[in-house]
């Protein structure tokens, strides 16, 4: 595992087998290296934040974890299963929600959950759908086409889909972007409750540093495709002389922007 530019030893090291193990992951597009030798792990019951400026490689990393983008080199293992070699079995143990991947708008809320529940081979699917409709306050929209939902309701539907198979690894790409503070709070509470059950781990990307500080046990700062800082989001700012995680993020982004611009 390459040493981050900064590191914070205060972050808890997971003792149990990781639900996600990423080793020396690299992705190049012609002359551009979008992700450059990234290694990290997510333990059960852990929320790991993946943050960085736009174009840092967060979504590219998530796409490789989800098996929809082939790494140039390196490995991704979900619950011990190599995504490259056991793709279907590995992805059966994961799920994701992303603001840029809304569920088909021409199916109703219930139809979407049923179709994806069948794809994930969820046992007792009818009961599980009812449970999730209640948990994400979607009962009254069960017969509504997903495309007619507000952005907050669509986010809740995406999260309900992501929870269908009780994943070992949950990938959330800006799950609370473009929704109101009250809905965001409910969503954070739902994800906390999922993690506290201890069964799954979460990889979370966000540009909201207050949210990352509140939710994540550990944060990885990504810049130019590399992890440049890693640690506990609650203690990292002070350890690096910043007033807040937001300030630290801005300082890191500027520093690495200038590094990236240097000849």
């Amino acid at each position: 595992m390459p040493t981050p530019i900064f590191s914070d030893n205060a972050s808890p090291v997971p003792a149990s087998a990781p639900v996600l193990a990423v080793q020396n992951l690299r992705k190049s597009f012609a002359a551009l290296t979008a992700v450059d030798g990234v290694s990290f792990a997510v333990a059960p019951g852990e929320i790991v934040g993946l943050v960085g400026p736009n174009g840092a490689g967060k979504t590219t990393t998530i796409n490789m974890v989800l098996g929809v983008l082939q790494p140039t080199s390196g490995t991704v293992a979900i619950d011990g299963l190599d995504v490259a070699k056991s793709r279907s079995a590995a992805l059966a143990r994961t799920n994701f929600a992303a603001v840029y991947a809304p569920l088909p708008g021409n199916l109703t809320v219930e139809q979407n959950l049923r179709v994806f529940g069948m794809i994930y081979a969820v046992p007792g699917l009818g009961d599980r759908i009812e449970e999730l409709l209640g948990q994400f306050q979607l009962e009254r929209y069960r017969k509504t086409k997903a495309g007619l939902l507000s952005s907050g309701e669509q986010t809740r539907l995406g999260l309900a889909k992501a929870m269908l198979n009780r994943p070992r690894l949950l990938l959330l790409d800006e799950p609370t972007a473009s929704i109101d503070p009250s809905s965001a709070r409910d969503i954070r509470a739902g994800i906390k409750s999922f993690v506290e059950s201890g069964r799954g781990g979460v990889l979370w990307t966000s540009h909201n540093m207050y949210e990352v500080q509140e939710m994540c046990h550990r944060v990885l700062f990504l810049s130019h495709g590399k992890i440049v800082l890693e640690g506990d989001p609650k203690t990292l700012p002070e350890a690096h002389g910043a007033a807040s995680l937001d300030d630290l993020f801005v300082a890191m982004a500027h520093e690495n922007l200038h590094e990236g611009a240097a000849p």
Partner: protein
Amino acid sequence: MNVTRVGAIVLRQFYLMRGSPARVFPLFAWIAIDIVLWGFITRYLNSVAHTGFDFVPALLGAVLLWNFLTRVMQGVTLAFFEDVWSRNFLNFFATPLRISEYLAGLVVTGVVTSLLGLAVMLLLAFVAFGLSFAAYGLAMAPFLFVLFLSGIALGVFGSALVLRLGPASEWLIWPIPTLVSPFAGVFYPIGVLPYWMQIVSKALPPSYVFEGMRAITAGEPAPWATLAWGGVLAVGYVGLACWTFAAVYRKAIRSGLIARYSAESVA
């Protein structure tokens, strides 16, 4: 192959059709118009030709069978286009769903929708123009099967093309049956074609079907041996089309196209 996952792809199409008359109507409407149009043309030809040759089974039967192949192809491609239009690739392909299961779901959807269309065509051709395939009995099954396999191969290949070239390439797919039909000898014997076109015809499974149907309507024995060769070719093309789709998909995974399909990048 996981049957439940195949069922999920089919169920999605069922949900879409159940809630949308705009999707159900084209399953029957255009083929019904074709049958009516060609039914009257054949009646007219029968009335002016006075040759004793019955144009109804020769032309109307050919139209019906060609429409069946077209419907099978469109059944597969339309099911695929639903995922293109709703930008659903990332949702589907970041799941345990295998490519073979996805394609099987598209094919089953194509089978069901085309059989519905076939039933309407047979009923209309019989009621309005007295064309009955019942006289052929089970002998029809191999002919339909070869057309069915050919439609699947065209549908899967067309879907692979759109996956490779992006959503805007959809228009390339619709004319494919029209481009194939002159070579397949839908309305005339292959022998009337120039030599180079006959060479192409020999590579097309539907040409064996239409040559065989013409032989039967002329009272000759069914050419089972050549039809069997057409069947072998059709099975080969289905395999080749599925291989092409899988190869295009693998390339899309390498390039990142699956994750950003709406960008229409073909890098």
